[in-house]
């Protein structure tokens, strides 16, 4: 089975998010981009399927900047191919519709049996790229999957529903599966293998169309969440704070 894994790059929350007062958008000066966590799970699930059933894994991403190291890391983990699509306006962020358009264009030749994508990305929590991509390619989509099993040319995806319900959904291939979690946490790959990949592997580069604005939400303002007024902050050294806390808990009848 030949599997494609689209990877989206999102802001690394280890750096403080700041809003550029002149544009009202996120300040990207010190922003560090990292692969979306659920896409890392999608890659892990793809590698597990490859180990079980053979085939190939290709990772594909839009070049939003600083993507090479993560692509080489994917190769070091076991991906066979890394594809980077460059194009106008990608660095400023690409909407879900435009992202699905660009991925569909790159994947439309039908050489993939399965496309595993993270169900959603932490930056917009939109969760629509996988479904849009499937619609554009005219193939089935199952989202929120926590397991994917190959069975006689088809795949069975275990999908999570709210309330702890699980469904097993059989789909014919090619298909897009949105991954909520891989069967096991994404694997570690030693630095020497990443370095080897950087020396030996090649990233396939393609030119994509300019990113469109179709489906983009209009951002009218952006601000950090405001602290609520209900919380009481207790100051002082550990003993004083503990004493006050015990007093409050007693007063509330908890102790």
């Amino acid at each position, binding site marked *: 089975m030949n599997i494609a894994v689209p990877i989206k790059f999102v802001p690394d929350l280890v750096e403080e998010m700041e809003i550029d007062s002149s544009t009202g958008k996120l300040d990207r000066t010190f922003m560090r981009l990292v692969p979306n966590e659920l896409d890392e799970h999608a890659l892990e699930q793809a590698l597990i399927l490859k180990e079980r059933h053979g085939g190939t894994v290709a990772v594909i991403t839009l070049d939003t900047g600083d993507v090479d190291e993560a692509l080489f890391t994917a190769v070091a983990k076991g991906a066979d191919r890394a594809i980077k699509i460059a194009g106008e306006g990608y660095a400023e962020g690409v909407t879900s519709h435009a992202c699905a358009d660009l991925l569909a264009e790159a994947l439309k030749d039908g050489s993939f049996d399965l496309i595993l994508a993270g169900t959603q990305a932490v930056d917009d929590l939109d969760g629509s790229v996988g479904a849009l991509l499937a619609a554009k390619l005219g193939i089935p989509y199952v989202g929120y999957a926590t397991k994917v099993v190959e069975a006689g040319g088809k795949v069975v995806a275990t999908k999570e529903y709210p309330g702890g319900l699980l469904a097993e959904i059989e789909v014919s291939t090619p298909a897009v599966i949105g991954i909520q979690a891989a069967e096991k946490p994404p694997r*570690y790959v030693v630095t020497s293998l990443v370095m080897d990949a950087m020396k030996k592997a090649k990233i396939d580069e393609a030119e994509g169309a300019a990113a469109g604005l179709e489906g983009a939400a209009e951002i009218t303002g952006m601000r950090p969440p405001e602290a609520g007024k209900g919380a009481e902050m207790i100051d002082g050294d550990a003993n004083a704070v503990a004493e006050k806390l015990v007093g409050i808990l007693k007063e509330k009848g908890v102790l």
Partner: protein
Amino acid sequence: MIQVESADQFLKQVSGSVAEGERIRLCIQCGSCSGVCPFGLWMEFPPQAIIASLRAGELKPLLDTDSIWLCVSCYACTNVCPAKIPLTPGLLSSVKAEKLMKSSVPTELQDALVNARKYGNTVGESPRKRADWTADFTVEVPILAKTKKPVDVLWYVGDYPSYHARVQQVTRATAKIFKALGVSFGILGPEEQSDGDVFHLAGERGLFELLASKNAKTFEKYEFKEIVTTDPHAYNTFKHEYPKLGYHFPVRHYAQFLHAHLNRLRSLMKNKLEARVAYHDPCGLGRANDNHIYQEPREIIEAIPGAELVEMGHNRTTSICCGGGGGGMWLDGFAWEKAGTRTSEWRILEAVAAGAQILAVACPYETPRFDDAVKSTNHAKDIVVKDIAELVADALQG
């Protein structure tokens, strides 16, 4: 590095991985290593059993268990080996390296490895915040990239001393001592990266080499006479491992540095401590690479007015690891699950039994680990944990 496929191939790899590695052939199976190992009881394959298995041509059973991750790289086994086999840096780190090649590593440690590769620190913080501990601090701490002036001492602060709230108190105490002594010093701030010692011993040699090359490049940018480290691990790796990669820098641990200034410090330390103090020998200053820095920290403590040095049963070469070395700092959950015990707690019980009111330490892993152990052994009323730098700085004030 290529993944090994046979016991024989693995033995050859161990032999070539470290100086005198071929001594593994001299093992007489006495079992001293497994007996002295703090976690030997809970390992399916303690050191002597690893060698026995390899000699029997059995590699797979050895790599199928994960108990190697109980090894805290404390050099206790290496220290007692009558055949002088470099067990810790050669054999044990090679087993860990094989486990890592198979991506078989507890997730707790995996996170620290990923953080170090991504951010240059194990705690997963922004590198830009590395010098944040200097903000609102009474002592001016020059950052070399800003001052661009030559200094006598390039102070390599380290990950925990830079980021961990408890260990930052030790860092500030060290800065106060430098100021009192009039030392010309500077730090690297955001340019500083993890020293890599624990990753080297945890089998992630590629990561160690990456960090070493980044640090060496930064060191070369500045003019200084010597590096002084807060962390014994950094001292150990700068002294013994960086030169193997071609990076030569004169280095001392801060305990050695303070010891060299002890006469000045004696005249400056006026505040009385009036307490019995036990000193915990960190592995990195003691057994590792036969560093044997045992006397200097003790003489610093004895120079503090009113301090009475007492010894724990295990001291100097027989000191028991705090549990943080070789990746152990990020394997607490794993070790607890496997062994149901903590060496840091043994140490607190020993210190209390020795009548100590203060457990003095000289390694940034130890303050938080022993602070926790004081609480979990219910000895908070009996003993406190202080870094030597804190004891000295407290004696200076007033």
